């Protein structure tokens, strides 16, 4: 059985506790990096990270990009969507196709 974790600043993620996700409030860069590594080892299959925190530890996140577990998904924090999550999708497209062919479609 796998678990779901949520990382980010306290205000953004407190609510997730109520619906049964494991909540790990973190804001510091080093602290978050270590926490992510620990969660990945502890068998969390799914880790949601707020975008503002994800900017700080993007190196650590990209390390798990091509491994099967854990799936790290960016979610917008209280400050609103910063567009990083969408950018990750775009990067996948660029990597596979060679150019971003989908963003033009929606405009």
């Amino acid at each position, binding site marked *: 059985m796998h678990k779901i974790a949520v990382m980010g600043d306290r*205000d953004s993620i407190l609510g997730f506790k109520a*619906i049964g996700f494991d909540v790990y409030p973190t804001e510091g860069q080093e602290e978050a990096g270590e926490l992510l590594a620990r969660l990945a080892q502890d068998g969390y299959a799914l880790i949601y990270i707020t975008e503002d925190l994800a900017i700080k530890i993007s190196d650590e996140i990209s390390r798990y990009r091509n491994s099967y577990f854990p799936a790290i*998904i960016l979610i917008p924090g209280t400050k609103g969507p910063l567009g990083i*999550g969408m950018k990750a999708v775009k990067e*996948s497209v660029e990597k596979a196709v060679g150019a971003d062919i*989908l963003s033009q479609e929606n405009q």
Partner: protein
Amino acid sequence: MARLNVNPTRMVLTNLKRRLQTARRGHKLLKDKRDELMKKFLEVVRENRKEREIVEKMLMDVHSRFVMARALMSDTHLEEALIYPKQKVTLKASSKNVMSVEVPVFEFSTEGQGEGDIFPYGFANTSGELDGAIIALSEVTPHLLRLAELEKSAQLMADEIEKTRRRVNALEYVMIPNMEETIKYIVMKLDENERGNLTRLMKVKDMMLEQAHQYKKKMAQGS
């Protein structure tokens, strides 16, 4: 194009021809794999974008509701209300094989006291805004999981497509031309040897006939 460094012999030629055939077949298969993966990938990624937009919009709604709840309640009360969750989410992750890429499939089930009863607190000390926020958040959950599934699939497939494309290109532009050129070189070299051999034999035959019949002497006497 660089020629492979081999001896121009008949055996090497046979081997090379066999390898070329394998390479061609592999190239065709990999190309098909790449095309099919690309098709699947684009489907996944389109859905991924849509799902992400939905999730981002819904989460922003949740956040604004939480801000309201926080404004109406003290921090300690809020935290106290949420500290012990009633509902437990268990996640079952299995995998699906899409064109030999293992992609995750998430299934989740919630364990709680009853349907619709997700509030982990009594209603006396909390505001109605918090209830709304929590309901909204629980509605996002299936979308969040779907998003995770799609996004991870997209990442893994993108990786596989890149790898496959590299292989296809290496076969198409390096391996196959190299082998073709080497085969041509060996064939030409063997033909050349053959011709050299033939000429030598004809020359030897001439010399042997000359020795046996002494044509030149006879021609000189006759004239």
